[in-house]
């Protein structure tokens, strides 16, 4: 099977379909998305049974040209991308904003993302990410109101700024190693006699990647981009569910390549824990439902980073499973938030009440997603969080507990909008596509939770042990967490006035750029003292 079909397919279909009438384009897209998902699933089966696929594009000799390589991690991400896109396409069938231009940009991003997951050339990845940045900023600004224009500009410029760090990092790396191919780089890193010569390129590249992944001091762009009030909800969903994971994916790749020369675990463990805690704090201060979800993404990214850098096998694979889980339930949360906000005409959490009576199907799907993200037993989030937690002891375990407790607090704040008196009856017509897609994604959260063990075993070839007594323990722990979080929210968080002060502080662009520089300097200093 030729890997480039997965990359070229979306781009070709989007370009040709742009000239078709709108209805015909949709039919073509539906066929295409189903075929693409089937193709990605087939690729996953092949990679699982026959091992890694490596192909040279354009007939160049290995190492010189661009190689596409499908390994288990990359292929899983590709399959997840196509599946999420299929869901989001079905969700948006009846939406008014999906004209041909929108679909063109939206589907090209799919091809570009798949290409990032398959590409083996670091310069190629730079190009792909630049393309992605431009297209996403256009989608963020889709409705062209004041807030959206500001958010889009901010997203575009901060990412271009970070990518110039990445380009310089590539230059420094090429000077040191002389290759840009991942495999060749890995082989040459093992032969480097002085690991210190890799500090400079690595810290430039990791700074850019950390900004893409929205780690601790560099996440200020994320709530702007993901929480833009007027951005279509499928754009927010794909941003938070998928595209922020591109940064994490690149981090995993870079970390594996340089693992022979230097270990980055401690630095990113601290950064990850900080990201998780600060994301929760900021989420608790917000009133806009999309902003709550955006900051919750920040905290979940922190949790994923904690697991990735723990140095423990279970926690590592738990994190990778959490990448998929978080993609699923956060995309679902953004979709349902969009549907609820449309029905109520506001995004203020204090003004929305009784959603479960006014938009029942969507609210039930949202509650399933919330159950996933707070780690209710039998849901997917429970398994990945359990695996991340299982590697830690002592103080570190307490930190994970605090993160879980914080996430529960945030979503108690969020879930308040489902109860109470809705004030009015339903105004808009229910959209069957919205209802069925959100419901299907909610059920997928449970299915992934119950079938977690075979799924992890199949996708990553690892056998993780989930102990038998675990479910009973877990249920008690979960009940205690939720039981403690409700009074803490009602008597502590809701009344704290200093949260308003935090909410009012916003960083301007030069401040964010300064933080990027500070991050670069501290990463360099840390590497200089440890390597």
């Amino acid at each position, binding site marked *: 099977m030729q890997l480039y079909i997965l990359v070229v397919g979306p781009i070709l279909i989007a370009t040709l379909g742009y000239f078709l009438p709108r209805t015909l384009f949709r039919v073509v897209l539906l066929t295409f998305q189903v075929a693409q998902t089937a193709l990605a699933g087939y690729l996953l089966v092949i990679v699982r049974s026959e091992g890694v696929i490596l192909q040279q594009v354009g007939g160049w000799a290995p190492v*010189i040209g661009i190689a596409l390589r499908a390994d288990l991690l990359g292929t899983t991400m590709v399959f997840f991308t196509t599946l999420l896109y299929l869901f989001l396409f079905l969700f948006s069938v009846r939406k008014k904003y999906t004209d041909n231009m929108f679909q063109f940009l939206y589907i090209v991003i799919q091809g570009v993302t798949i290409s990032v997951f398959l590409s083996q050339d670091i*310069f190629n990845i*730079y*190009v792909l990410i*630049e393309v992605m940045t*431009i297209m996403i*900023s256009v989608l963020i*600004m889709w409705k*062209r*109101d*004041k*807030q959206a*224009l*500001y958010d*889009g*500009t901010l997203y*575009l*410029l901060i990412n*271009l*700024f970070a990518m*110039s760090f990445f*380009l*310089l990092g*590539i*230059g*420094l790396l*090429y*000077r040191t190693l*002389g290759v*840009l191919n991942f495999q060749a780089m890995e082989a040459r890193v093992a032969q480097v006699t002085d690991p210190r010569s890799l500090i400079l390129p690595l810290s430039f590249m990791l700074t850019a990647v950390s900004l893409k992944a929205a780690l601790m001091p560099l996440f200020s762009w994320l709530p702007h981009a993901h929480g833009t*009030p007027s951005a279509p909800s499928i754009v927010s969903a794909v941003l938070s569910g998928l595209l922020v994971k591109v940064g994490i994916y690149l981090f995993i790749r870079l970390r594996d390549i340089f693992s022979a020369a230097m270990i980055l675990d401690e630095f990113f463990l601290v950064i990850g824990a900080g990201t998780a805690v600060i994301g929760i704090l900021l989420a608790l201060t917000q009133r*806009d439902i999309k*902003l709550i979800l955006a900051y919750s993404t920040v905290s979940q990214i922190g949790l994923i980073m904690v697991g990735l850098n723990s140095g423990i096998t279970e926690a590592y694979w738990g994190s990778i499973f959490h990448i998929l889980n978080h993609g699923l339930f956060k995309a679902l949360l953004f979709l349902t938030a969009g549907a609820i906000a449309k029905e109520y005409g506001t995004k203020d959490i204090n003004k929305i009440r009784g959603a479960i009576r006014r938009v029942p199907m969507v609210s039930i799907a949202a509650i399933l997603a919330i159950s996933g993200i707070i780690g209710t037993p039998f849901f997917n989030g429970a398994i990945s969080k359990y695996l991340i937690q299982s590697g830690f002891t002592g103080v570190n375990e307490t930190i994970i507990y605090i993160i879980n407790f914080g996430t529960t607090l945030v979503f108690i704040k969020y879930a308040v909008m489902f109860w109470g008196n809705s004030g009015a009856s339903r105004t808009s017509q229910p959209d069957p596509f919205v209802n069925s897609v959100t419901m299907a994604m909610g059920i997928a959260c449970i299915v992934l939770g119950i079938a977690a063990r075979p799924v992890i075993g199949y996708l990553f070839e690892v056998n993780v042990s989930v102990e038998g007594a675990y479910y009973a323990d877990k249920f008690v722990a979960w009940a205690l967490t939720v039981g403690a979080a409700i009074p803490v929210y009602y008597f502590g968080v809701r009344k704290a006035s200093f949260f308003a002060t935090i909410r*009012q502080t*916003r960083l*301007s*662009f*030069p401040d964010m*750029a*300064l933080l990027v*520089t500070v991050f670069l300097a501290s990463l360099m200093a840390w590497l200089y003292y440890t390597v």
Partner: protein
Amino acid sequence: MIDIPFGPDFINGQTVSLVLFFIGLLGVVTQRNIFKTIIAINIMDVGAILFLLTVNVRPTSVPPVGSTDMLRMADPLPQALMITAIVIGISVTAVSLTIFISLFRKHGSSDWTKLIHRIESR
């Protein structure tokens, strides 16, 4: 014997490109005007591109054009890549400036700190 760091050899492509990069960085961090931010990011990009062009180039190297001697010519790979990077740089700057114009028309200001107060109401 003390090495003097700022000899004539010191001014080569690599140091100049790094200095350019950090001038651009200084611009991004200190300037509050969005237009200047875009230009400063462009300067950073140019610095990075120039750096890649100077990799594996000696003063005696000849351009890798036609059938030149393999040993004497400059490394062709970064040169081929940088054509792409330059094109990306141009298009990215064009997009940023276009977006900047519509932002300016909506908000009537090109100052990051003023804009943030106008957005504040959320």
